[in-house]
């Protein structure tokens, strides 16, 4: 799961996004065109409701989802997240805006083309499972293939493959009503996967499950995603779930997308008070990583260039008694202490080599605060953050900020 912390939500501009949503607007009510006009004139949702009786469910939502990305849309009930999701495969017709899947505009498809898209490219998993009660588990899983017109033998074979993938072996001939909620949702997931879609829409897929089962299903979904690299759009009202699962998260409120970013971006730089009020309750230790805490321009003692005298001058200028020692091309060597640099100087040695403490723990940019906790206990030094590939010093985290991060909840 390290992958999620490597980027900062930066898009690969050379590649077309898997799914691009542009100014998607959804209005419920008879006079939606009038309402849309008013919306474009900048009227508020309340004004539009008064004037036309129409509800604006989604307002100018725009975001992009990359291929293989786990994208979570998070919002409370009534935020429009489920409606937005249903616009993506047009279970609900959007009022305005574009949805581009691989560059093809879904909103412009005719009925037959839309059915093909739903059969082959976009599958959906539902909060209430939506299984057919009169069919067995295997028949339910094969249902999407059956709708495509696949012959029974072939579709059952494919469904059987998926059965193993989601851990339903032995349950094939049971009816959905004979299964627990968690098992039923496995059937829902298997049914969606049987079509081998590129995009998976998951509408509060785990919200109806017990907390313990939910966590287990989340883990299994992440494992599956490691193998399959589907593009997943996952809806939830639970920020913990969003953070656990999402490569990126979009936060919705009152039909608007307020913020899109990696879990860490959302935690460290909430777009507004609404987002921060959510973020407060989250266990930041597991989310915040070294890269967002570090001072990227620390004062360094450069080995051979800075001798004992030069190092002491830097310590005096910054008021620090510990400095990281690096080579001229910034390879991290260790730390030097004020007292030992003084001793080296007293002995008249030309370099600080003897004063460098080389055997110190380092962090990588994606190391979480939780993983850094032992550092606080063991040493009194700051934490050096290095590039895992070439050991270059990227930044420094002071003991103070590490302690504040683990004890207080103030944004960094």
């Amino acid at each position, binding site marked *: 799961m390290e992958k999620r912390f490597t980027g900062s939500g930066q898009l690969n501009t050379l590649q077309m996004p898997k799914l691009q949503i542009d100014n998607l607007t959804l209005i419920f009510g008879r006079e939606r065109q009038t309402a849309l006009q008013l919306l474009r004139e900048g009227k508020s949702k309340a004004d539009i409701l008064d004037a036309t009786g129409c509800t604006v469910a989604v307002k100018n939502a725009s975001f992009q989802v990359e291929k293989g990305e786990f994208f979570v849309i998070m919002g409370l009930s009534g935020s429009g997240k489920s409606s937005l999701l249903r616009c993506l*495969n047009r*279970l609900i017709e959007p009022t305005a805006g574009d949805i581009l899947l691989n560059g093809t505009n879904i909103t412009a498809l005719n009925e037959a083309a*839309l*059915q*093909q*898209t*739903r*059969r*082959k490219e*976009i*599958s*959906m998993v*539902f*909060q*209430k*499972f*939506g*299984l*057919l*009660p*009169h069919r067995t588990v295997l028949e339910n899983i094969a*249902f*999407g293939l*059956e*709708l*495509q017109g696949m012959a029974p033998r072939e579709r059952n074979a494919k469904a059987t493959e998926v059965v193993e993938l989601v851990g339903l072996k032995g349950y094939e001939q*049971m*009816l959905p009503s*004979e299964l627990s909620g968690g098992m039923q949702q496995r059937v*829902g997931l298997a*049914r969606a996967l049987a*079509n081998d879609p590129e995009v998976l*829409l998951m509408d509060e897929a785990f919200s109806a499950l017990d907390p313990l089962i939910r966590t287990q299903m989340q883990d299994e979904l992440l494992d599956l995603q490691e193998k399959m690299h589907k593009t997943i759009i996952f809806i939830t009202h639970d920020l913990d779930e969003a953070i656990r699962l999402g490569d990126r998260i979009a936060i919705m409120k009152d039909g608007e997308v307020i913020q899109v970013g990696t879990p860490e971006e959302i935690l460290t730089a909430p777009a507004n008070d609404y987002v921060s009020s959510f973020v407060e309750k989250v266990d930041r230790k597991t989310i915040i990583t070294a890269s967002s805490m570090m001072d990227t321009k620390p004062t360094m003692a450069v080995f051979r260039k800075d001798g004992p005298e030069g190092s002491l001058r830097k310590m005096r200028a910054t008021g620090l008694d510990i400095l990281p020692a690096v080579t001229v091309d910034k390879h991290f060597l260790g730390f030097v202490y004020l007292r030992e640099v003084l001793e080296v100087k007293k002995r008249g040695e030309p370099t600080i080599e003897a004063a460098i403490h080389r055997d110190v723990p380092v962090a990588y940019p994606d190391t979480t605060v939780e993983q850094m906790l032992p550092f606080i206990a063991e040493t009194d030094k700051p934490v050096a953050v290095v590039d895992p590939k070439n050991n270059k010093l990227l930044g420094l985290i002071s003991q103070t900020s590490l302690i504040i991060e683990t004890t207080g909840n103030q944004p960094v």
Partner: protein
Amino acid sequence: MIKIGTYIEQFINWLTHNCGPFFKTVKVGVEAMVNSVQWLLTFTPFYVVIALLALLAWRRAGWGVGTMTLLGLSLIYGMGYWGQTMETLALILVSAVIALLIGIPLGIWAAKNNTAGKVMRPLMDFMQTMPAFVYLIPAVLFFGLGKVPGVFATIIFAMPPAVRLTTLGIKQVPEDIVEATRSFGATSRQLLFKVELPLAMPTLLAGVNQTIMMALSMVVISAMIAAGGLGEVVLKGITQLKIGLGFEGGIAVVILAIILDRITQSFGKKKQRAKH
């Protein structure tokens, strides 16, 4: 004074005069259907018919109903009303099948289309609450006396439950299942046949049961326009004040009603799957 009666009369007359050939064709077709079913029921030896019906009742509804069917039908035969009973049964079967063939699609349409549903509702109320005898009048005007007007009146009287319960059954299919089906790219036809109708089946079969029961009651009434069958026996009992005859006919009707009801109801109850 508003003379609705006059308008309706004019309308029916217009229909009779202008659609004569149509009614004639319908009459020939329906007559052929009733006669062939009746032929099948009467030319098969009575003990075979009794045995088959008893077997069906036993398989579908258990040994109790099976035994009752066996005894009941034997009693009818013993009372000497076998011919009339089979005549009535033929009328019921033909009317009910036609009523269902029209009613179920109408019910589906009403479930799918709001406007159709809104129009059909009062129409069904009207058809169901209008005193049954009233249908006999236009039936006779269109088709003369005999079996065919009986079938016509019966279809109109017996169709509403099929329409209503089909609509109800389809509307009761949970929204999340319909949504899930659509999300996998189902066409409306696939949605209907693979999901909605199977899930609506218990309710729909309750409609079939009611249609058959209403057909039975109407078929008896249509003896007034010479449709024949058990109704004729009862009618003779009334007109000639022969209480014994009336009751005999009545008992035969009751036996037939119970058998039809139990057998058709058994199709509505889902077979219980063995629990794992």
